[in-house]
Each structure stands twice: as C-alpha cells, then as structure tokens.
C-alpha cells in the first residue's frame, strides 16, 4: 500500500494562471481527496460599489474580470436599467450581443489554447492564439480596446458599428469559421488528444446538477441550459442558435462543447449584423436611480453570470452582489478529480476554464504594516508553508542576496 501524500498546488504555482490553492491528497498516483481554497483575488468590489455612483460602478464592475469584462458590465447594467425602467433601443441591444459573442469567441479560443498547453500540445496553443488575434484586433477596431471594451453606458451603448466595420466583421467570421472547422477536426479526431482527454475529469449529470455546474462545464454533462435561450436578454430573442451539449461528461466533452459554441457564435454574429436595426444608440438615463431591486442573468463564456442590484433612490446603489460562473463550477472540481490521477489535475482544473478574479471580488488593502524586504517576504512564505501546509522549504537555497 502506497503512502498517502499531500501535495499543495498553489496559491502560487506555475500550472495555475491565477492564484488559487488546491491541496491534493494522493494515494500513490491516484487522487484521494482535494481541498480547494479560494479568495486570493478578493479586491473589495462589492463594497466599493456601494460607495460610488452607478456610472463609476459600471467601469469598476467591468474590471471584475479581464476576459469577460463585457459580460459583467452588461449584466450589471441590465439590472440597473430594469430598476430605472429604461427601454434600451434595439440597436444598442444588438451591439451588446455582438460584442458579447466576440468576447465568447476570444475566450473560447483562449481556453482551447490553454487546454492544449496543459496537455503538452503547444502547436495548437500557438495556432489558436494566433487566430485569437483576429478577434482581438476586431474588438480594438470596434471599441478602441482589446480588453475592457467599455462599450456600454447606462441606457445603451456609446459606439455604433459602421457599414465598413460590418464588412470587416463578416470577413473575420469567415476566416475564423474556417480555422475552427480545422480545430474541430484536430480536437475530435486526433488520436492523442482524444486519448488524453477522454474519461478525464468525469462529472456525471446528477453531480453536475447537485454541484450547480453552469455553462460549458454543465453542458458537457448533458445539462442543456443556456441563459441566452432561457432568458432571451439583449438581442438573443431575435436570432436562431443551438444550445450545444455533449454526453461525454469529461474534459473531451468540454472541448467539444466549446468548439461547437464557437461555430454558433459565428452564426449569431452574422445574423445580428444582417438584421442590425436602425434606432438611436441610447436613451437618456437619470443619475439617481429610483428605489427598487432587480436581478440580471447573462451567459458569460464560462457560464451563468448573475448580478443583483438594490437601489435606494440615490445615485449610489444600496447593495450590489454578483456571482461569477467559476464560483458555481469550482465546487464540482473535487468531484471531477475523485479517483483521477495527479497528472490530470491541471487539465481538469483548466477544463472548467476557471477565472478566479471573477470569483473573488472583495478585499481592501489588508493592513498598513511597513513594507517587507525581499528577505522578510521569503521568510514569511517559508513560515507560512511550514505552519499551514507542513512543508519545509528552509533547505531550498536560492541564489538571492
């Protein structure tokens, strides 16, 4: 019988793109238990929102996440607009959906690259990230920014899409569709990928429901739920699209779902561009929002994003609460890893497409202690790991003076 071993992955670890901590208990090579600790990215956004006017909150909330910034901003605004009774013009709704789908494309392409990298297939990483540049350039062209597009304003959008830009979008969709077909071919038929991803990180449909998995993670476990179809916010009531799901229930299924969603996004954007109605871009919005409450749902690239806003009649909200999709998905990670192998841990974590910045939102500067020197900082981390993890790093000598 092999000895049990606890391996701390994180809070800082080369395999993680953001700080989170996973304590993996191993029996030989097999994962026996996994303990998740989050909160390292908590920045105090919900509390800060209560002390700032709605207009400032919009830009603050856009910074909850670097990748799904538009998702959070739109989700927040939909709630505020519902409370204020604003009737957002159709063209603005269309533009919000177009930018939202572009965000999904860039996020899914990014994920495909990261997932490929985690299984050692860096050629695919280079390919997908090269193609992702097409959509990043397009977003920069439309909004002026590659991330944090700030295209939303209360009551509409701030920027129109011109005829010339429409042509460029359609052209880019053709190129990307061609490329994605190739990736679909590679990901589903390349034998090494198939073998590496199949039966890894299994999440049964029952467990997915129980743990509250959302987005592609849930849809890969046969849960055909998509807020775009359920709630028909923005312009999603005006377009036809399929909710992609898969019955593999593993990492392979999650890849298939995301590639399928890319194809749907191209089709949605084409339909929206074709039907883009001619209306004003915004309605005037008041600075003071009447008392009331609303909840808004949004299908972000990673799953359902929810924002709750309570207004009290002033220019600042009484309470803003948000739930990012990773918070819903991260609880299923330990189920996915049960009886799995250590070597699968990183790809299984990557497969929920975690975004811990979204998940954690809320800390303020911890204290006003004097700054630490590099030596003190190193000592602090050695002590921390010794006390909290039972790992002794004192014997590790680094060439630091």
């Amino acid at each position, binding site marked *: 019988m092999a000895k049990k071993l606890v391996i701390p992955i994180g809070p800082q670890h080369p395999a993680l793109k953001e700080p989170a901590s996973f304590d993996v208990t191993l029996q030989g090579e097999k994962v026996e238990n996994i303990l998740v600790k989050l909160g390292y990215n908590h920045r105090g956004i919900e509390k800060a929102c209560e002390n700032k006017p709605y207009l400032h909150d919009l830009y603050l909330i856009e910074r909850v996440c670097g990748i799904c910034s538009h998702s959070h901003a739109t989700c927040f605004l939909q709630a505020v607009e519902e409370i204020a009774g604003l009737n957002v013009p159709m063209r603005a709704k269309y533009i919000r959906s177009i930018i939202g789908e572009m965000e999904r494309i860039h996020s899914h392409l990014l994920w495909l690259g990261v997932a490929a990298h985690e299984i050692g297939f860096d050629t695919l990483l280079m390919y997908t990230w090269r193609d992702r540049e097409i959509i990043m350039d397009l977003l920069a062209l439309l909004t002026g920014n590659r991330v944090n597009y700030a295209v939303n304003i209360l009551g509409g959008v701030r920027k129109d899409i011109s005829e010339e830009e429409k042509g460029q979008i359609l052209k880019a969709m053709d190129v990307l569709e061609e490329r994605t077909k190739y990736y679909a071919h590679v990901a589903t038929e390349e034998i090494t990928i198939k073998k590496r991803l199949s039966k890894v990180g299994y999440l049964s449909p029952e467990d997915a429901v*129980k743990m509250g998995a959302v987005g592609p993670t849930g849809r890969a476990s046969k849960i055909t739920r998509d807020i775009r179809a359920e709630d028909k916010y923005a312009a999603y009531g005006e377009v036809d699209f399929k909710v992609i799901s898969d019955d593999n229930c593993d990492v392979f299924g999650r890849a298939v779902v995301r590639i399928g969603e890319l194809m749907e996004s191209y089709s949605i954007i084409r339909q929206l561009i074709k039907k883009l109605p001619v209306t004003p871009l915004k309605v005037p919005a008041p600075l003071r929002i009447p008392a009331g409450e609303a909840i808004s749902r949004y299908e972000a690239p990673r799953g359902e994003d929810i924002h709750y806003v*309570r207004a009290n009649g002033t220019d600042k909200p009484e309470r803003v609460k948000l739930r990012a999709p990773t918070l819903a998905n991260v609880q299923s990670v330990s189920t996915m890893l049960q009886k799995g192998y250590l070597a699968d841990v990183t790809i299984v974590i990557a497969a929920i497409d975690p975004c811990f910045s979204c998940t954690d939102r809320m*800390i303020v500067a911890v204290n006003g202690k004097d700054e630490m020197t590099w030596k003190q900082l190193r000592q602090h981390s050695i002590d921390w790991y010794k006390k909290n993890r039972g790992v002794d790093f004192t014997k590790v000598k680094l060439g630091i003076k």
Partner: protein
Amino acid sequence: MENNHPMVEKIISKYPALSDKIKIQRENRLWMKIDYPDFRKFLEFAAADLKVDIFCMLTGLDEKENYSFIYHMADLNGLMLNIETSVPKTNASIATITDLHPAAELQERELTDLLGVTIEGMPKGQRYPLPDDWPEGEYPLRKDWTADRLDKKAEDING
C-alpha cells in the same frame, strides 16, 4: 396585487398567507418575502412541487435591525424565484441549506466572512473569501464598516 401567474397561484393555494407578499416583476422574475421560521419548509416545497430547484445565488443584506437574505432560485424554464427572509441582528444565525443544495456552500461561507452571520450545521471546511490572518470581528460588508478600521487596527498592533 395581480396573482395571475401560474406559479404564484400554486404558491398561494398552499400558502394563502403569502398572497400579499409575492411580487411579479415580469414573467420570469418573482420576488417574495417569507418569515424565517417558515423558510426551510418553503424551500423544500419549491424544490419538490414547483420544480424551482436550481440554486443560483445567495445575497446577504445589512438592514437597520435585521440581516436579510435573498435566495435566488431558478427552474429549467428560465424562471427566477427570489425568496427573501430575514433574522434580527441580535440573533444573527441561520441554518445551512447545503443538505438540500450543496452548491450553496461557498456562498454561505461568504455570509459568515463578510456579514458575520452564523450558519448552523455547516460542514467543516476552509473559510471563504477572506484570508486566514484576517482580524477577528471585522465584517467588511456591514454598513457601518469602513476600510480605515483596518488601518487603525494595524496602528494599534504596530504602534
């Protein structure tokens, strides 16, 4: 108040006392208030009879005398039922719902860390989301809490 929503009718037929506590905001958004002692039974009824069994989010609110909690629940057709309940600040304690909805775990831990509400029957586990060395008795989401309290505390400790 109009109650011509099929789900509202179902709720009222079982709980007639709630008839003036339900608000239909629009087709897919229902808001309701319920006294805390009746809450748990209602949550079970919502899951079993109304098929509102997807736990989405839990919001904690600091109101003058009370802490309020809104359980945002959904069904498969896109309907969202927001159930609000509250407990007095003098007895800030609620029971966990993780036995019914395991997905609520992290959000209940948030209430403990940020509002200082005790959750009865919570399984053992890591705190979330504040750091392990967060000073005790500091609950940042309370309305009377401001960030400079931390600076003062650090001054007291460090001189």
